[in-house]
């Protein structure tokens, strides 16, 4: 007799129940909601909640639910109109220190969310959003490091009173020139003692004694690691300030960063903010020399020629008072006197001290604010990618120092309030340690995402229906059992995807469709065997037993090879392709369970405990 032991039946039952339970959250609607996170020192607590409630009340907007979790507040709404209305109200009420972001969250009953059950995590191609791959310009990062060393070496040699002729930087090397070998050797020792991470090499050229300092491979690696980490931090700050729920910012390889922003809608603006290297520099204007001479090519040493936004040339001192790196906080607003857009800046201790000293010594003299932006792009020249770097330096404001100032002050001269807001955001988020370039972008509009979900769902359902009808006709009772297993398989795939919170993508849905077609293969193999056994004159019960047994190793062999392909796909694929590999692999595993163990349990239940004359197969 064909009977499963009790534990096997219980196992099947448990898997079915658990599968159903964890697949359940996907049936609930998603509420339009808002995720509010605190910036800087702000906190989110019960007081914030009542502030929001009171602010929403006059507008007639009622939150469907509010919850605080992981220092973030989630506010749900009944409709997206309410959500958008509330966005403006809450942003105004809470001010700069809080960032509200629009999102969707499932409306699960408490007992279900209490179990940790969540709906599937949809990929960007389904929920809409922006994916960018950012390349960090490591060559420049290393050159910048060499540049820092060259200025440190200069300071060191001055301190030690070792006279040199010239210090210059070539790519990632620093060359120091002396007029005799003795001084060169003293300097080499001094540099070697102070900067242990530099490789030093003495060179003798005609009439010149040189030291060549280059970054050791270990040091280069450190520089690159730091540049990448610093850039990730900066990008994270920028993204957080923009107010996007569930952003993903991740290292990929040794010089790339992936940024995924679900639900984000304005790619132009986002790319601008992500890629921006805008920063400020404060310099004194050079009033002793003539600007006309400089324009004609006679630029005085110690000064540089700049242009204002309207094209007006200005001469500024080479020495920088403070740079954007010394800015610790910035906000935007309007200048109280002129009503112009302004950025209010706070400096760190060192910057504030320098600023106070310089302004003290130079009251009545003009000081300029330089707006600096670096851009890198890759162009194809003769079939090879070539990096083009462009540096924009504009003087946005130049004004006389009325009185000494230090830690906090304001800068005007920006074109619009929007520009002031963006600049404040960039200054606040910190500068990028190395220039970056967007090398890949995939933006999916929300309408396309929804279409893809609908079409994907439709093809799964139609495919499922066709296969089920065919199986029922072809294998009758056994076909219906296979159909049951097929549906269970689908539920299990959804449940596992939800549990793992693996990303479901459009190719992922295609993977599910494909598994639906292939999952019945195991049952076809088993049922064909059973038919053969019956044709050979075996009894129905023996045929069932033999059919399952003989088909087993074939099924395993066939599925393992498909699994190999899925694993290879997973390890090589990016984003959406990984999604395909994941659903394909999960589908193979669950289908083996449902098609072998699952159907056997049901077949045993139908035929196992009685005498059977003929099987409906």
């Amino acid at each position: 007799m064909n009977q499963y032991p009790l534990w096997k039946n219980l196992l099947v039952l448990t898997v079915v129940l658990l599968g159903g339970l964890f697949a359940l959250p996907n049936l609930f609607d998603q509420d339009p909601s808002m995720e509010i996170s605190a910036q800087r020192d702000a906190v989110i607590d019960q007081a914030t909640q009542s502030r929001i409630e009171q602010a929403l009340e006059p507008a007639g907007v009622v939150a469907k639910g509010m919850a605080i979790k992981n220092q973030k507040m989630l506010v749900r709404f009944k409709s997206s109109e309410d959500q958008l209305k509330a966005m403006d109200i809450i942003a105004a009420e809470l001010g700069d220190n809080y960032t509200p972001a629009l999102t969707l969250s499932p409306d699960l009953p408490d007992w279900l969310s209490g179990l940790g059950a969540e709906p599937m995590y949809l990929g960007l191609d389904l929920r809409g959003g922006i994916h960018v791959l950012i390349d960090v310009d490591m060559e420049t990062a290393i050159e910048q490091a060499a540049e820092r060393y060259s200025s440190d070496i200069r300071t060191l040699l001055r301190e030690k009173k070792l006279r040199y002729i010239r210090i210059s930087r070539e790519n990632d090397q620093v060359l120091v020139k002396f007029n005799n070998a003795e001084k060169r050797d003293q300097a080499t020792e001094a540099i070697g003692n102070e900067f242990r991470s530099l490789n030093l090499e003495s060179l003798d050229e005609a009439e010149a004694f040189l030291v060549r300092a280059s970054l050791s491979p270990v040091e280069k690696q450190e520089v690159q690691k730091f540049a990448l980490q610093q850039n990730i931090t900066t990008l994270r700050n920028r993204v957080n300030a923009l107010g996007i729920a569930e952003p993903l910012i991740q290292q990929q390889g040794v010089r790339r960063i992936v940024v995924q922003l679900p639900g984000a809608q304005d790619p132009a603006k986002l790319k601008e903010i992500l890629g921006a290297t805008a920063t400020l520099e404060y310099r004194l204007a050079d009033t002793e020399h003539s600007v006309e001479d400089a324009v004609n090519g006679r630029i005085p040493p110690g000064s540089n020629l700049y242009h204002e936004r309207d094209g007006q040339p200005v001469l500024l001192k080479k020495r920088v008072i403070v740079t954007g790196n010394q800015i610790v906080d910035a906000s935007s607003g309007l200048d109280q006197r002129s009503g112009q857009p302004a950025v209010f800046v706070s400096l760190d201790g060192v910057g504030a001290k320098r600023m106070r000293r310089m302004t003290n010594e130079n009251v009545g003299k003009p000081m300029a604010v330089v707006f600096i932006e670096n851009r890198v792009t890759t162009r194809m020249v003769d079939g090879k990618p070539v990096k083009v770097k462009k540096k924009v330096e504009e003087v946005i404001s130049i004004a006389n120092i009325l009185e000494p100032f230090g830690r906090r002050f304001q800068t005007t001269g920006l074109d619009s309030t929007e520009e002031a807001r963006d600049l404040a955001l960039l200054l606040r988020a910190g500068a990028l340690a190395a220039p970056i370039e967007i090398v890949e972008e995939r933006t999916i509009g929300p309408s396309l995402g929804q279409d893809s979900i609908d079409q994907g769902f439709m093809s799964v359902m139609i495919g499922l229906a066709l296969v089920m009808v065919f199986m029922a006709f072809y294998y009758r009772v056994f076909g219906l059992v296979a159909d049951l297993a097929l549906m269970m398989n689908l539920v299990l795939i959804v449940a596992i995807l939800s549990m793992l919170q693996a990303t479901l993508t459009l190719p992922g849905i295609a993977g599910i469709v494909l598994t639906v077609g292939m999952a019945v293969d195991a049952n076809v193999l088993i049922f064909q065997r059973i038919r053969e056994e019956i044709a050979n004159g075996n009894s129905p019960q023996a045929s069932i037993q033999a059919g399952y047994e003989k088909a087993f190793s074939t099924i395993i062999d066939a599925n393992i090879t498909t699994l190999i392909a899925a694993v290879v796909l997973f390890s090589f694929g990016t984003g959406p392709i990984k999604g395909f590999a994941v659903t394909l692999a999960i589908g193979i595993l669950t289908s083996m369970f449902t098609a072998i163990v699952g159907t056997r349990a049901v077949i045993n239940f139908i035929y196992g405990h009685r005498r059977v004359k003929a099987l409906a197969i």
Partner: protein
Amino acid sequence: MQIINKGTRFDLMGKRSMALVFSGVLLLIALIAIGVRGLNFGIDFTGGTLVEVGYTQAVELSVVRDALTQDGFGDAVIQHFGTPRDVLVRLAPRDDLESAVLSDRAFNAMKGIDPGADLRRVEFVGPQVGDELTEDGGLAMLYALIGILIYVGLRFEYRFAVGSVIALVHDVLITIGFFALFQVDFDLPVLAAVLAVIGYSLNDTIVVFDRIRENFRKIRKGEAIDIINTSVNQTLSRTLITSGTTLLVLVALFLFGGEIIHGFALALIVGVVIGTYSSIYVASSSVISMGVSRADLMPVQKEDGGPDEMP
């Protein structure tokens, strides 16, 4: 219900010279198509920019072209995508604009025609990323083939491993050849589909091989070719049914899955059809040609404590 009547026995292997000619012709066409016409690589591999815009009503391509030309995108490739309301534009790189902002400019120009236009999709792949994807894709295919070769070699015998890999290469070449011949876009999802074809085609082949092995051990008389023919016949219904159900869902995916998934579904449809044919003919014929015999498949006999061969 039965697809193939009980007791039917086609002389499948007897027609393998015909199959050889058929496969040869298909492969030749595929290779010529790949060599001469080349694959119509999508921007995933070549690098470039693609913008899909959804208009509120049907729009003439010439209107879109005019709008784009005015903004300096004269060399853009423009086509409808799925419906007459959707327009897909491929942009060439421009010297005066950063690649990353190309799409934003083009969308603005296209929005000029219809302020309600909706940005459905932007894909920008830099040249260096495209090169990497091409390389990774090729490597992925190679590793999948090697992994399978090893597994089948361990589970069966080397001739079966070689036979299944011949069938796989056959399927992959013909599927890719199809894309070259009809100049269908070959993008990342299509590459994924080709890799899935490798998995699927093998699945079919393994089932046939499994039966061949079983029959070699069970049927004590008869030529190798007869046993292989019997095995292929015995698994024929299963091969056809599984391919049938898979094709059913793939056709559903092709028809209802949306424009983006078209190439993917098409590659799988072609691959499954070819894979079914090859598991019947190519894989088994290769094994016959390599002269597999019963002895090769007998389970290794355990030595039972015989006399020691000590001198």
